[in-house]
């Protein structure tokens, strides 16, 4: 049986890597932004694969939090330093708490519910989660996400892209869209419609 990525990550030895506290905190905040929405998507689409990624990110977050603690201890030279570092560690700890909550959300997948409880919940929310496919007629094919200005023109964030059997989670601006890509997105309903039109080839650009 294939060992899931999160399990592999969990048993990896942690090596001390000199990096900046700032970079660590930044990555932790970025994971925070992604992981909760991903967890809800996993439930909504009943997807074990997305759930796996949530678990992986949860493990990753644990490690970042561990690293940041070591870095903070190395950085404190006096009481004032230590007091300021305590604040940093508390914020890092909060980020970890959020990722743990996301990990708990995906546990619901194993409950074998007869009728799903989430769809309505997410449909009525200000930000909805949807799955969309890039059609062969779309002008978005071959374009970078950043170039298409998806988030600023529609308010939609792409949580994950499924390309064939591969997944890209939390894609950055430089990722190019390809025909047949399945996008898992979160955002306002209207922006979602706008993006869907682009992906279907009904409009050429987002305005």
């Amino acid at each position, binding site marked *: 049986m294939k060992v899931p990525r999160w399990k592999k990550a969990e048993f990896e030895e942690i090596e001390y890597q000199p990096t900046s506290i700032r970079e660590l905190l930044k990555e932790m*905040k970025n994971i925070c*932004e992604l992981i909760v929405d991903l967890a809800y998507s996993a439930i909504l689409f009943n997807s074990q694969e997305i759930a796996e990624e949530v678990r992986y990110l949860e493990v990753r977050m644990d490690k970042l939090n561990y690293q940041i603690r070591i870095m903070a201890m190395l950085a404190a030279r006096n009481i004032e330093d230590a007091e*300021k570092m305590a604040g940093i560690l508390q914020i890092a700890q*909060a980020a970890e708490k959020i990722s743990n*909550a996301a990990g708990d959300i995906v546990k619901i997948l194993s409950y074998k519910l007869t009728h799903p409880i989430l769809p309505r919940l997410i449909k009525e*929310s*200000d930000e909805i989660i949807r799955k969309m496919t890039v059609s062969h007629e779309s002008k978005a094919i071959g374009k970078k996400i950043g170039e298409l200005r998806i988030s*600023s023109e529609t*308010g939609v964030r792409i949580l994950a892209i499924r390309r064939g059997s591969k997944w890209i989670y939390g894609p950055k601006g430089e990722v190019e869209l390809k025909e047949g890509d399945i996008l898992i997105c979160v955002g306002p309903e209207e*922006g979602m419609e706008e993006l869907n039109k682009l992906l279907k080839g009904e409009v050429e650009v987002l305005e």
Partner: protein
Amino acid sequence: MSEQEAQELLLELKEKAELMVDLAYSSVIYNNKEIAKEVYELEDYVDNLNEELQKLAIKDAKAGELEVNEAIAIIQLGACSEAIADAARDIADVELRDVELHPIIRESILESDEVLIKVEVSPNSVLKDKKLGDVKLASHTGMWVIAIKRGKKWIYGADRNTIIKAGDILFVRGPREGVEHFIALARGEEKEI
């Protein structure tokens, strides 16, 4: 049907918890104790909501309106939102302490993918006197208004019916690419939403 009631509570919990995280980070970036205190108050509110949800789920399960598994799932989702709300309070707590914040905290938040900004609405802004729902800020700019400071008053979790006024200070969350356009709109330098 009370299943609907449970769903509504759950939705409210989820949205409030997420709003709290945004507010908590904002309070830290802008060194704003008022926002941090609001996070504390929202935490109490979320606690109560969660308690209500738990009672309702159990009551429904007992009455046979919800299956046991469904009731557990609802309770678990509520607990997750509550945990997120707690985490937000922990962030706000750092702001409320009498220790100067380490500049790294602010820098790292400002450099992350989703940013939080603060901008004042100018009298010649196109946003002036418009309802949030009518200008459709979120779907046109990607930016969500999380709090408004109007004179001494604060409006948290503004909705579609909230009207933007000149002089309002908007606290907004969104993608880095949307920031410039949004600031120009609020300042009246850009007329097209």
